[in-house]
């Protein structure tokens, strides 16, 4: 059994087209979505601002998560100091108030920043599903250039409109450098 027939027998992840400029892939993504596809993803060496919107991505939810993280950090940081100085180990020095909150603001602030940053980074990786050592796109030899200077658009086989012949024709009509089958 040759390698080629082996690849044909395997279930496909999708069909990928390779482009050489951001303009080309943005144009291609628009046309693919206009043709009624929904499960498409672009892999690019730079962030292209328009692409996620074209490909139907909604909110990222990173900002509210960071906000919640900051709030938890602030409440936790202040709460820790309040607990330590008012509840757990109150110590009267010259009749000064136990709850001397202005002195606790710097640590409250630092805790808020810390939690906001950590929750932002962790949620970004978690929502992206990273770390993910294996992905079908890595099977393509030319995909190494997706992190350098090539732009890939992949229509996944889970798409209801996916069809080996029609989808390939559509991708080939977009003037790509190559169209490739992506094995699972």
């Amino acid at each position, binding site marked *: 059994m040759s390698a080629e027939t082996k690849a044909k027998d395997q279930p496909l992840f999708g069909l990928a087209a390779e482009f050489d400029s951001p303009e080309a892939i943005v144009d291609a993504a628009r046309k693919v979505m206009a043709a009624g596809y929904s499960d498409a993803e672009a892999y690019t060496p730079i*962030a292209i601002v328009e*692409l996620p919107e074209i490909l139907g991505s909604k909110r*990222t939810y990173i900002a509210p998560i960071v906000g919640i993280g900051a709030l938890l950090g602030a409440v936790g940081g202040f709460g820790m*100091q309040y607990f330590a100085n008012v509840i757990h180990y109150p110590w009267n020095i010259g009749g000064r108030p136990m709850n001397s909150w202005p002195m606790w603001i710097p640590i409250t602030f630092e805790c808020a920043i810390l939690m906001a*940053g950590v929750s932002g*980074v962790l949620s970004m990786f978690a*929502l992206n599903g990273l770390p993910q050592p294996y992905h079908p796109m890595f099977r393509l030899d030319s995909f190494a250039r997706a992190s*350098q200077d090539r732009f890939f658009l992949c229509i996944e086989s889970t798409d209801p409109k996916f069809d080996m012949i029609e989808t390939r024709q559509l991708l080939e009509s977009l003037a790509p450098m190559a169209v490739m089958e992506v094995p699972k």
Partner: protein
Amino acid sequence: MSSIPHDATMQTVNPPVIYPGVTYASVTDQVSDVVLKRPFGKAWMAGVGITMLLVMMLTGSIGYLLLKGVGVWGINVPVAWGFAIINFVWWIGIGHAGTFISAMLLLMRQDWRTSINRFAEAMTLFAVACAGMFPLLHLGRYKFFYWLMPYPNSMGLWPQFRSALVWDVFAVSTYGLISLLFWYVGLVPDLATMRDRATNPIVWRIYAILALGWRGASRHWQRYHAAYLLLAGIAAPLVVSVHSIVGMDFAQSLVPGWHSTIFPPYFVAGAIFSGFAMVLTLIIPMRKAFKLENLITLRHVNNCCKLMLVTGMIVAYGYAAEIYMSWYSGSVYESYLSYNRFFGNYAVAFWLLITCNVVIPQLLWFQSIRNNLYLVWTLAIVVNVGMWLERYVIIIISLARDFIPSSWGMYYPTVWDITVFAGTIGFFLLLILMFVRVLPAIAMAETRELVHETHGGTVPMQNMEPRRVR
């Protein structure tokens, strides 16, 4: 590399951020080849050798210090802070330019930050690592360093949350961690590039693990940018808070020359001043050694110089305000402090400080000087020295002459003060040398974006589509 125009042809009034002819592929090749293809040069080897020797000296000195106690240093009553705290403040200040470049300039959409932010962030991390050593070594009872952190303990005790020194623990550790996260998040797409370009299987594996399987999916980029922008948004106030709190370490006390409300802003400006000096000290040789002149251009050097000039002027204002307040306060202790700075035992340090930080940086007003890399580099070294002297003047002069003449004293550093300080410089430079050989020193993904956005420098930044957090 023959196509790279030489500096001399590019010395215009406003040099470009990247030279013409830079493409996605050329950025990637040029930056990653420094790590993956370039053979180890003799100069690099020699640099590693020398810095390794300094690190050995550092470990030896720390070993002796741990064995004998802080008495091996020149610190004693009344000057109990000495070199350790001078070096702590100096190093932590140097780190600030990295965060300033990566966070503040990103928020202000300064396109020239892109080629130097990675390097400056690395500098921040290494400087914080050097800074972090000093307060711990200065503790005296090193084995109880964890008492600084709040944790449930059998003694039922808590740290003194009302003390600026405990604020420092929180500020510096948060700063170190957030800087690390910021740096790593910025690195992930570049680590993927390194993974895809690596030919050696072991090298490939290491980059593959570090890249976490990044594949540049558009939805990933969207979340990535949202997170990166927000990190910048929180790092910007963080960097201001860190050195403000370092300033409050002093301002919270009653010592003449320390007890002053100007300290937090004046310290932040001084930190960024010294940080830009260190950035220039490092990038000028680096761009030459690795032939990165087309990516780190005279525009970067020029802009760093201008920021040095601005922050240097704020610092000069701080000195002027201190002198004015010592007269205006009507306090004999405050006015004696100024007199003692001008004419006392440490007057040499004070006048050197004024020369290094106020007088000499005025040369930066001239375009011709900003374009002369040798002069700029020398000037940056002068400012580094000046900022170290500033902390020396603040700490030593104030402590040596406080309120009661009976408690006056002199401070003399010992050889161990000097070896630890020189050792941390060696440690810092060793980390920098290692960094430029194992990680891409210029943010490739961001530079490719810059190539995209500027179309090779033809479209001005204002026409860009604004980045938003969605």
